[in-house]
């Protein structure tokens, strides 16, 4: 996010992550062609700009097909951007990852499929010991003690170390995944839908855990989610994605109180809310990135689309305090 609070704007602080017009194009076979070897470019990310301050909590929100998973892979250095620059502490992420374990140690990941992210033939203790040993966090003799400490920090009893993920409940597995991510003493925690698909009470327990950890440990939290409620509970800042691009960013409360982009507004309205009638939903579905329209990519579904929207592709522009929006006719212009 660009210089979010007025207080921090004076201090030119180094962002942890900085994405400068990142593009990621995958070469795919066009649908329906079985025999042809011809491929076409599928732009999963198209001109993404994002700054993440140290210690910030940022929610990346988007529906399926918005490119948030690809953005995540770029941030983790698993995919190189096709164009543009993805920086971590002012150095290219790919370079940092190749340079040694320091990046991997500092940026930890909690997967949506927490169960699948842990080797089923390792017990919980061994799974947590792996990063401890690999990064040399503590001397070998102190590993069992540190495992117990980490389990305690995520609210699990120390004897969980002897169990296997197949015997744990969904909520417990997520806690184990968080403990494992924290083992390397990271400063950045990236979580991909870390609380989705759980019962509300379990989800609430985990959200509180994550919020507490983020505050106590001063973590930079990057939280990928589709749920605006989760974003508003956990993250101070929000970035809303649509079809491979960030369409709106800013402080979560401000953005959700008065969304400027019509897509953010539609997402906001679609979120279930007690005793509010179900609103007229957004028409249609997210189009394929293979045939993007010429102008604004949201124009086809946008209730406010004007003639110029179909010609001009809007850039992400400043929109009030700490906010940016990519729309020619934003709602509630300041």
């Amino acid at each position, binding site marked *: 996010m660009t210089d979010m609070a007025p207080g921090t704007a004076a201090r030119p602080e180094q962002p942890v992550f900085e994405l400068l017009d990142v593009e990621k194009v995958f070469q795919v076979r066009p649908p329906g062609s079985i025999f042809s070897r011809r491929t076409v470019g599928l732009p999963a990310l198209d001109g993404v700009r994002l700054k993440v301050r140290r210690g910030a909590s940022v929610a990346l929100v988007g529906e399926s097909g918005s490119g948030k998973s690809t953005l995540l892979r770029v941030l*983790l250095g*698993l995919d190189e951007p096709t164009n543009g620059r993805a920086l971590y502490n002012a150095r290219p992420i790919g370079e940092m*990852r190749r340079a*040694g*374990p320091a*990046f*991997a*140690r500092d940026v930890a*990941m909690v*997967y949506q*499929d927490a*169960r*699948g*992210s*842990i*080797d*089923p*033939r390792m017990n919980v203790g061994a799974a947590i010991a*792996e*990063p401890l040993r*690999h*990064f040399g966090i503590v001397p070998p003799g102190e590993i069992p003690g540190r495992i117990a400490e980490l389990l305690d920090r995520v*609210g*699990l*009893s120390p004897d969980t170390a002897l*169990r296997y*993920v*197949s*015997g*744990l*409940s969904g*909520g*417990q597995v997520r*806690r184990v995944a968080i403990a494992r991510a924290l083992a*390397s003493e990271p400063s950045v925690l990236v979580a991909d839908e870390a609380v989705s698909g759980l019962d509300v009470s*379990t989800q609430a*327990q985990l959200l*509180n*855990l994550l*919020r*507490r950890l983020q505050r106590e440990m001063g973590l930079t939290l990057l939280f990928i989610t589709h749920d605006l409620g989760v974003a508003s509970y956990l993250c101070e800042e929000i970035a809303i994605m649509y079809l491979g691009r960030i369409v709106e960013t800013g402080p979560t409360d401000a953005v959700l109180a008065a969304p400027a982009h019509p897509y953010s507004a539609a997402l906001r309205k679609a979120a279930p809310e007690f005793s509010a009638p179900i609103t007229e939903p957004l028409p249609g579905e997210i189009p394929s990135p293979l045939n993007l329209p010429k102008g604004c990519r949201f124009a086809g579904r946008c209730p406010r689309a004007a003639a110029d929207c179909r010609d001009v592709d809007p850039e992400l522009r400043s929109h009030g305090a700490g906010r940016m929006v990519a729309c020619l006719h934003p709602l509630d212009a300041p």
Partner: protein
Amino acid sequence: MAAVTDMDSPTPAPAAATGPGRRSSLFLRRPFFTIALLATLAYVGAAVFAPWVAPYDPVQQSIDAMMAPPGPAHWLGTDSYGQDILSRIIYGARYALVIGLCSVLIGAAGGLVIGLAAGLAGGWVEWALMRVIDSILALPSLIMAVAFIAILGQGVDKVVIAVGLSMIGPFARTVRADVMQVRVQLYIEAARLMSIPRWQVIARHVLPNVVFPLAVQVTIRISEAILVSSSLSFLGIGVTPPTPDWGLMIAEGRGFVAFAPWMSAMPGLALALLLIALSILGDGIREEYDPKLRGGS
């Protein structure tokens, strides 16, 4: 926000039924498995304690008791040389089990190396290895074993090697399939994300997840190895007489089926029972310990 910190509680242990400790005994749940296990143990016992269990010397010929039908002196009768069939079957269990186990281990080891190499290398290495394996798999393992015997010659050790080599193909194929499946698992990506070196990922995450299904395969394929080795003996190109090998015994009795059927039937029955027991055992182990079949996890 003070309330936030004190509410985070551990979820208590879920259903104890999912833990390994509380499941009802394997033997009660699987009666056939238990019977098969006991039968297999009986064969192993017979093989180990053959000198003490067998009533006669397996190669002692007796002119007075040639082709004696089953009776009190010779429970399963004698063969055309007057050798006691029961004793020969008991000693034969040694050959069957040792040949079966050793050849399967050779096949599994070879298959593991080739399958891992193919599954991990990718590219043309994988392509070349898999085409070789495909061409091997095009022939039944018995034909392969016959071909290897033709090169190696006869004898117990040669049979072990020939049968072992003939089984590399199927093992390599399943190992490769498992490697391909493990390679794309999220925990492999998670390890990669931690910048754990490739060889460590292979040793710590790929290998254990591939070796276990392989061990299950070994138990299932022992019976196949025994069958192939017995077939070689039956064809007269495996172990040499007077070794008390079941395949050989069946072959020897073939000419006398009309008037001394026990000569072939008894070792045949011994072979069949062992193969059935081993199959049930292998299936049971697979169903019990293979997470893919167990579902849920």
